[in-house]
């Protein structure tokens, strides 16, 4: 089952976070769509673009064995750099470090679930340093180019844990509906 959301059958969630209208902040959704179209993966994996869910993130982390979050991470590193963070990384250096722009709610959602006894077994953040998160200007080319590398990183991460994930010989066409229009829409008005 893919892209269903809050699927109780899936023990692993690969989640994209980000606002598709804020330039490189749309990295998460872009990678999710790229990964979904380029890889075949185990039924236990749910691959889902959650946008900017705020506190509504909690249901998607609830009781999972493994959660992989893909998001833009602001840092001093060069734009386009991919980094990995574990939950411990930002728990321990909490006062100094926020992992992603959406972190305020990620942190709260995790804390709620931990108290209630439904926190995910493991959480990994795959982040990319954005170039520009400007409203309505579209995602930078450099970040678009990094999407396949990030997808392969997700695949590797799953395979390392014994979860089936293979690259498709022929990728399906990703539905990047939020990208700027290249030609006017074709509508038949009568």
């Amino acid at each position, binding site marked *: 089952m893919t*892209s*269903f*959301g*809050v*699927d*109780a059958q899936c023990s692993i969630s690969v989640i994209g976070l*980000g*606002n*598709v*209208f*804020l330039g490189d*902040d749309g990295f998460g959704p872009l990678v999710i769509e790229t990964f979904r179209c380029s890889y075949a993966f185990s039924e236990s994996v749910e691959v*889902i*673009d*959650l*946008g*900017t*869910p*705020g*506190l*509504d993130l*909690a*249901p998607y982390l*609830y009781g999972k064995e493994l959660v992989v979050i893909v998001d*833009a*991470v*602001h*840092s*001093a590193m060069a734009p386009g750099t991919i980094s990995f963070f574990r939950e411990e990384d930002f728990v321990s250096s*909490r*006062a*100094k*470090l*926020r*992992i992603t*722009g*959406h*972190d*305020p709610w990620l*942190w*709260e959602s995790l*804390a*709620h*679930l931990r*108290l*209630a006894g*439904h926190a995910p077994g493991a959480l990994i953040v795959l982040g990319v340093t*954005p170039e520009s*998160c400007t*409203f*309505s200007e579209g995602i930078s080319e450099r970040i678009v180019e990094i999407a396949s590398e990030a997808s392969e990183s997700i695949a590797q991460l799953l395979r390392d844990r014994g979860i089936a994930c293979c690259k498709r010989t022929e990728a399906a066409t990703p539905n990047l*509906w*939020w990208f700027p*229009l290249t030609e*006017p*829409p074709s*509508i*038949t*008005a*009568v």
Partner: protein
Amino acid sequence: MARITIDPVTRIEGHLRIDVEVNGGVVNKAWASCTMWRGLEAILRGRDAREGWVFAQRFCGVCTTVHAIASVRAVEDALALDIPPNAQYIRNLILICHALHDHIVHFYHLSALDWVDIMSIPKADAAKAASIAEGSSSWAGNSRKELEAVQNKVKGLVASGQLGIFSHGYWGHPAMRLSPELNLIMFSHYLQALEFQRKSCQVVAILGGKTPHIQNLAVGGVMNAINLNSLATLNVDRLGTLQAILEDLIPFVQQVFLVDNCLLAASYPEWFKYGRGVANYLAVPDLPLDAKATKFDLPGGVIMNGDLSSARPIKDWKDDAFRKAVTEDSTHAWYQGGGPLQPYKGETIPDYTDFKEDAKYTWVKAPRYDGSPMQVGPLANILVGYAQGHPLTRKWTDSAFTQIASVHGLKVTPNDMQSTMGRYLARSIRSSMLADLALEHLNLLKTNILNGDDTTYNVPTFPKGEVMGMGMHEAPRGALSHWVVIENGAFTNCQAVVPTTWNASPRDDKGVPGPYETSLIGNPVVDAEKPLEVLRTVHSFDPCMACSCHTLDASGEEIAQVKVQ
């Protein structure tokens, strides 16, 4: 006199800044400022009108479904397109469960900690707490064992000294007055609520194909294939799953959420006296029952000056008075232009000036109804229904009043509801109504399918030239309307007049403030450094400014800043 700036207000969706002037422990002036720009209307221009809803549901990360539905309804209105009854019921079920989810999160996770002092929980007598909880509700999750387990978790948290997300609460504030036992009961439900938040999402996911950002909508209906015997479609099994989830979810709403709000109301009766604010109320009809949307399960209407006997119904979405009455003014908002414009002619051209309280100070425009500010949300929803004698509204409002009176001896009237506490109580009353309606609409859907109707979609046809349409939805935070202008099938203008715009409205061209601003006048503030009471009134509206996300530096801390001058 002290000037307090809270920026950002925490535990809301998005960014909001509140400024108040306090004199003698009471607020006498207030300003609400939304610090994020929402320019999404501009993105829709030139797009295919059939796809507008896909974009609209990214207006906000939290209120996704509500913008999707208002967008398709606006286009359908422009085309005068009927919607098959199955599609109405499926949409209604999605809207109901989205709203239940939203209301549960608001009460427990976004606002309960304004009233509930976690630090007093270790002192609670769990046996006594269980007897209070079991005495006021038939809910099965209130046992002594359950409450002791929660108490132990809190004891562990407090003993560790690592309060994490709870480290910035106003613990021990003199305005926190619940007994340790009530704090324990409420916090236990705070944790249990996570499971029910998830269950309501599951209903939306089953019908919408995905949450958030449902996939099943279409201008003209929904794309759910119905075949009772097919595995791939909405079939007998899926309908059964929906029924089972709702049967789990409904008791939490009616026996926990509502009961907790009655307990809260009885414990803080003075909050029925604060926060009245703008006493003009607007609610729009929703949960249509037929293809042409002539009958609704939630009534709409307008109440002026807090006078329930003056209620005027909004019978359906074609209501001409509504279409003529709504304007938006940018005199005090960071947009070019000023004077009120009808939404079809609305403009969204930014003109940022920094916070200037006598000039422009917010990204929110000032919507007006026949020139007046209006309060929207569950309270408007309940008052409009109550005033018109709507049976379901009366049933649950009277049930709440009876619970408060019989268990706690406090008499509450519909007039008392026009207050900070009234807005909390109204949200739980509305949720109890929606819980009944969820089952009703599932039954309507089943019956219609069993009668042999499997239609879910009517094909839209776009005329040459320009058409205009308006789509309404009574969203969790109140009346939402999308106004679209379409030319040859593509958008030439889109304006969303959203609930938080009505409530967080700045002053208008005549200097008249909006509901948040007015509601804070007379609000007590015992300690200017810890303005908990201001948060109570602001949170009572369930602010959602998250119409676009904000980004932070990896090193940037975002703790609420309270500045007192």
